[in-house]
């Protein structure tokens, strides 16, 4: 999985590309924790529009980061899930916890 990071003020954009499973969940975890542990950023916009596969390991990593960011008084939203990824998000109930937006612009608006 490829992870592209961009910082805009106190918001971190994380754009994932590829398959999100137990192997890549670790890469995701460190990418997020690296930025949030120093408290340099507050919010996370997680763009998964280029994620072609996700399983419960990927979802677990997302949900754990969400809880952590919330504890730090920040917020996290998800952008653009492909149909097969969206089904897994829906089945797991993640969509009831984390807001999912169609694009990064509306996600950024939603954060404010």
């Amino acid at each position: 999985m490829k992870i592209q990071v961009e910082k805009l003020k106190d918001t971190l954009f994380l754009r994932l590309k590829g398959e999100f499973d137990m192997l890549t969940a670790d890469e995701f975890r460190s990418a997020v924790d690296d930025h949030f542990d120093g408290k340099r950023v507050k919010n996370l916009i997680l763009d998964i529009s280029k994620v072609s596969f996700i399983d419960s390991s990927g979802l677990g990593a997302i949900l754990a980061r969400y809880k952590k960011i919330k504890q730090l008084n920040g917020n996290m939203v998800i952008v653009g899930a492909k149909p097969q990824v969206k089904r897994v998000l829906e089945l797991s109930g993640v969509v009831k916890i984390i807001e999912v937006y169609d694009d990064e612009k509306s996600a950024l608006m939603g954060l404010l």
Partner: protein
Amino acid sequence: MTVKDRGEIINYVQLEFLSVPENVSLSRVVVASFAAQLDLTLNDLEEIKVAVSEAVSNSIIHGYNNKPVGKVYVTVMRYEKELVIIVKDEGVGIKDVKKAMEAAYSTDPERMGLGFVFMKSFMDEVNVVSEPGKGTTVELVKKLELPKKTTGKQAPKE
């Protein structure tokens, strides 16, 4: 596991690999490629990929405690009416299979405990046999649509 009579095996592929995370994607891709030869929808293939990923991840994470110390065996078999995937490990096993198959059984905050929920949602049948200290075997079954036209040879007319 009750051995069901599923008829004759038309084709099968067997994988044996070390319990490392890199092999999770490898195994689901192999199974999906095998399944892609059959009359299944893209949606079916995505479901099979998730189910295999969950079963193999369970073997590595729980069976072998996330260590590269054991073997995982994945067999995908095509029967006339079913696609059967067996994921087997020789790891620690599960004490209470019924409880393990319930949602949110996992105690690790990084894990959702949804592995078996996904397997059950995405497959037509999920059978688990486990013995502590011996290992776990998960059988995942996807029913195949019966071909609309019979391809069997017709008896020649006299």
